[in-house]
């Protein structure tokens, strides 16, 4: 085999754990295992880190989607080598219905200047568990973050973006709320803060258990008496409910008051956690892919071995019992480990049926996983002007029914600018996502959201004027026009634990909480006696223009 020459042999050949795929869950697990003193080998067939969580150049991005929209052909036949059976390893398609439109082919020349997230839109809340983990593992030293400048809610087809009054000062500044609404909203925020306040003596300020279990939408309207407008803001733009909550009988995922206010308090604690991050949310410079790379670096510091461009063709199973023993690389080298973790696109060979699925089917709703039919629709748009004048990085929420009557899920939109190196300067990358069961319906929702936000050039006739009028669109109140866009369906998968475990696809949420929870759970299943990153904390630095410097003498 000629090819074998290009794959250097890996030394040693025995590990505690082999991880295939460098997605975020795999990278965290590799780092956690090596922190606990395990020997870890981390492999990825691609020349870059990240798997389904990667941030890729435009060209690599489309190629990755294409590759994973088809089932892979086995590179090896079932065979036996020595004392093991070789079970061929294949992947199943996780992306489908990819629709890419190129309105302005020039941008393909700048492919390398884009860092597009496969798992977008996604942000970090300054007070969320992921940030805590980043601080605990001290990987913040190799990352930089930027604040998300604003979040908006978009109601009605005109695409008018209204600020989400998510904090005290945002309520103060808001121009679209009535004075009474300002009062009501702030009082509600205070009620939630009091509930979480450390004044345990003030039992009266706690929200009752009964209320906590009630649907959040009912709590907001019956107990608090908020207007439809305020309810919509809280439910879909702050607590980020996936599904329309007004009609509780048909709602697939009713947001409980407890979960609703948990998110609200996360939002609240996030604003101002770091003095140099004014907003509640931050985003890593160079894209989400930085996060998992930081975990890989952390794993490497603790002694794990990482090899990219290293396809695995088969798994080795004990001939007699059928137990997992190791992996066979494309180079033909055989490596052995006690445990194996696979990225979610791999098909678990039939011999290794999982003993445990997670998140548990009943806990799956946190994950956007109600049943196997649920999928995520993701879209990416590239434009030359911002959705909102003078705003670089921002979130936009389309509550259910805001685009059309049958729209039952909310759409999250996340615009990034060149200041996080998402795109060349002067351009903007906008991510969209929503959940769906019916692919057609899901794509319709995302397409309608795109219609509401952008002017879409008639294909084949790229607008000549759009090139010399960058930035002016918003001045004139015109929508930014699209240079490039793609819409695709991504599968949601369960993770599996067994002698061979597998991780999961990016969920439909805007933040990392549930992904991290599921990852932590898998780690504890695999290593019940080990602590998940037994280390100390430090502080975080956010790269801000005019960042705070200490007064120097």
């Amino acid at each position, binding site marked *: 085999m000629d090819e074998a020459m290009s794959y250097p042999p890996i030394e040693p050949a025995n590990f505690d754990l082999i991880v295939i795929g460098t997605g975020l869950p795999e990278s965290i697990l590799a780092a956690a295992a090596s922190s606990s003193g395990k020997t870890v080998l981390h492999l990825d067939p691609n020349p870059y880190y990240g798997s389904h969580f990667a941030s890729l150049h435009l060209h690599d991005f489309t190629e990755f989607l294409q590759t994973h929209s088809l089932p892979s052909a086995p590179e090896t036949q079932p065979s036996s080598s020595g004392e093991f059976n070789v079970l061929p390893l294949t992947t199943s398609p996780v992306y489908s219905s990819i629709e890419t439109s190129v309105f302005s082919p020039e941008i393909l020349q700048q492919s390398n200047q884009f860092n597009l997230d496969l798992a977008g839109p996604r942000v970090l809340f300054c007070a969320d568990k992921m940030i805590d983990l980043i601080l605990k593992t001290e990987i913040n030293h190799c990352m930089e973050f930027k604040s998300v400048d604003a979040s908006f809610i978009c109601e009605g087809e005109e695409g008018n973006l209204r600020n989400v009054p998510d904090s*005290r*000062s945002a*309520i*103060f*500044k808001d121009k679209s709320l009535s*004075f*009474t609404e*300002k*009062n*009501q909203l*702030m*009082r509600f925020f205070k009620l939630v803060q009091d509930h979480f306040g450390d004044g345990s003596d003030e039992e009266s300020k706690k929200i009752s258990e009964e209320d906590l279990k009630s649907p959040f939408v009912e709590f907001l309207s019956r107990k608090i008496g908020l207007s439809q407008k305020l309810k919509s803001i809280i439910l879909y733009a702050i607590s980020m409910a996936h599904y329309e909550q007004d009609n509780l009988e048909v709602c697939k995922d009713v947001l409980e008051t407890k979960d609703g206010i948990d998110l609200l308090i996360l939002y609240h604690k996030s604003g101002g956690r770091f*003095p140099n991050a004014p907003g509640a949310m931050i985003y890593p410079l160079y894209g989400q892919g930085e996060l998992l790379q930081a975990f890989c670096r952390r794993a490497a510091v603790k002694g794990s071995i990482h090899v990219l461009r290293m396809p695995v063709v088969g798994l080795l199973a004990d001939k007699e019992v059928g137990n997992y023993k190791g992996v066979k690389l494309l180079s033909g080298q055989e490596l052995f480990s006690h445990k194996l973790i696979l990225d979610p696109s791999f098909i678990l060979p039939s011999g290794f049926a999982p003993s445990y699925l997670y998140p548990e089917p009943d806990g799956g709703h946190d994950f956007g996983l109600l049943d196997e039919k649920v999928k995520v629709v993701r879209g990416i748009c590239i434009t030359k002007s911002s959705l909102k004048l003078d705003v670089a990085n921002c979130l936009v929420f389309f509550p259910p029914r805001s685009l059309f009557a049958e729209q039952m899920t909310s759409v999250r939109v996340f615009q990034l600018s060149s200041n996080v190196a998402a795109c060349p300067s002067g351009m903007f990358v906008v991510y969209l996502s929503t959940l769906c069961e019916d692919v057609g319906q899901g794509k319709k929702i995302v397409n309608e959201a795109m219609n509401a936000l952008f002017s879409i050039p008639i294909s084949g006739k790229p607008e000549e004027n759009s090139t010399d009028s960058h930035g002016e669109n918003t001045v004139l109140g015109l929508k930014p026009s699209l240079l490039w866009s793609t819409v695709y369906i991504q599968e949601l998968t369960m993770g599996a634990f067994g002698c061979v475990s597998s991780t999961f696809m990016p969920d439909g949420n805007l933040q990392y909480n549930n992904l991290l929870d599921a990852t932590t759970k898998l780690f504890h299943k695999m290593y019940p006696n080990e602590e998940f990153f037994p280390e100390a904390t430090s502080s975080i630095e956010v790269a801000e223009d005019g960042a*705070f410097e200490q*007064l120097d*003498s």
Partner: protein
Amino acid sequence: MHGRPRKAPTEEEQEASVVKGAKLRSIQAKFFQFHHTNTYTKEALEVNAKLLEMNPEFITGWNYRKLAVQYHLEAAQSDEDSIKSILDEELKVVESALMTNFKSYGAWHHRKWVLNMGHSSTDRELFLLKKFQKLDARNFHAWNYRRFVTALKNIPDEEELQYTTDMIYENFSNYSAWHNRSVLLSRLLKEEVEGYYPKEKVLTEEFEFVRNALFTDPDDQSGWFYHLWLLDQTVKLEHLLVSSWPPNGSNVNVSDYCALSPSLSSISRTLPLILCFSEAVGGINSSTVSVVCESNMDSNLIWTPISVDKSGLARTWLTYLTFSSEPMHPSRNYLVKVSIANSEGIISSAGFCCSNPSHMAFTVCLPSSNTEFDEGPDIERIDWSEENFSSNQLHSENLGLINSFNELTISGDNKKTYETNAKIIADEIDYCRELLSEMDCKIGKLTLARLLLAYDALSSASRGVQDQNMFQYKEILELYHDLMKLDPPHFQYYKDQYSLVFLKQELANEESLLKYCYQYRDSTSLSNNSLCLCLRGLSLSQIGCIERLLWVQMLDLSNNGIRSIEGLESLQLLCCLNLSNNKICSFSALEPLRLLKSLKVLDISHNEIGAHPIDTRRYLCASPLSHTSDWKREEFVVSGPEMTIYWDAFSIFSGLNLRQLSVTGNPIADKKFKLFLCKLLPAMKWLDDEKLR
């Protein structure tokens, strides 16, 4: 900074502080050595800098630096470079001191002192301020300094106003930012800078701006403070004269008031003229106020401010008109015309000039001959018991005298302003009600009460009448009543406000005023009319509305909860005053009485004078020890040893010519005290129930 609980120091911290203290003492000792020998060497300055960095609060250290700088500057003469290096070093020392404590007065002051010399660049200052305000956006030292720097750099007020807007957007719980906004806006409005005119437009915008804060977080005080300032700006009345005695259009028989003249025995043809203004003013004299009479009248009038302080400002001004010669036509009424502000010399306490002239006139009837005023040997004791008062049938001439309200003519411009402002306040009232319908909010209620009162003032001013019985009074009283229950710590404040509004309501027009007027059983020689204003048992805690009471000669305020009689000094015609059964705690609370030179009968029985070992008001009162007092040493010596105990009683009574005094029922009123009073007031005929020889 804010909301951080104080923790007890740990053992290590205590140890560290002991070590720090020892170090500080040793440096301080070194420093004093240099200081006492006037040593300003480099080494000495370094020691001082180190000391100040450790303890920026050490004022002597800063003063030493100033001496050192002066010393070195002299040596440097006019060499720009060395001057600059000397001063730059100072700025550096201040900066490191501020890093230790950015709230050090001494450090900020030193920096100002250096910059004021004008040799240093101010470029770094705003940068520095930005850092300090990032640390604590409310730090008022930084805001103070900011005003200093922006003045030095000539930064336009508009720009600074925008800065306050930005800071408030960041966090509106910033009293300093709101305060600076009010300072800047005052200037912009005064100078009528483009975009800040007309005032009404600016006020409307500002009310809307601060409303965002009030609605978003009604529990935060800073916005309410700014709102109160705005309210004050909106309700400011341009016209000053409120009332007078004799009232406009009245007819006065001069002989009826002869007893009130300052010099009793001589001429009886004098008449007091009292002017009452909407606020304390200064500059009332014969050039700003012209008084013209058809008859011969001494035109050289001496105006006296009726005020307990010596600021020269007062709400009430008094002069005596003296009609010197025999009238040509004894039976005729002579017209007296008074014109106010015929020159722009009248200044209000806020500093603006009164330029709206007011005119009034009354007629006087002069006695045909000089009748000697005779007190008569047998003067009856005034008995305040109810049976001595009968409800009154007023003669029409009396009515004219009671009605001291001026019918003021308001210029068209002002009228329009008042109307616009009343509209602004009306809108605020609506919003305030909206907020209160959402939630219970003490300061919201208080503000609503203030708004309603302001609306009343503005709308009646715009109509040019002041005797309107406003329907809102009832609501205001209810609000204060609620507040007394809701907010017990501030009970007394609400009670005082309640009293003022209540009096406003009751004395608002002639009809309701007359309900409180009673006739004393028989006319006394003390007062020409025996009409008594009887405000007893109304649970008042304060007196208000005095501008409507200038005519009062006999006043019964007994059986209330009065603690303060501030304002009573304006009632210059007052002869008989009943303050019995109130809550007056000290003689110092009676200070306004010193100015009531006509007072003959005083009842302060059954109060709390002497009940409280500590008189919290005493420091307000002139004492023999205070350098501002007009005590005469002789008096002090003559009056004997009791003076050391009763000096405050002495200060109130010594200038009065009381004939009847009741003090019984006060803890202080023992035998010794009564003896002291007899000695102090030789003309006194009655003390409590006893007739004196």
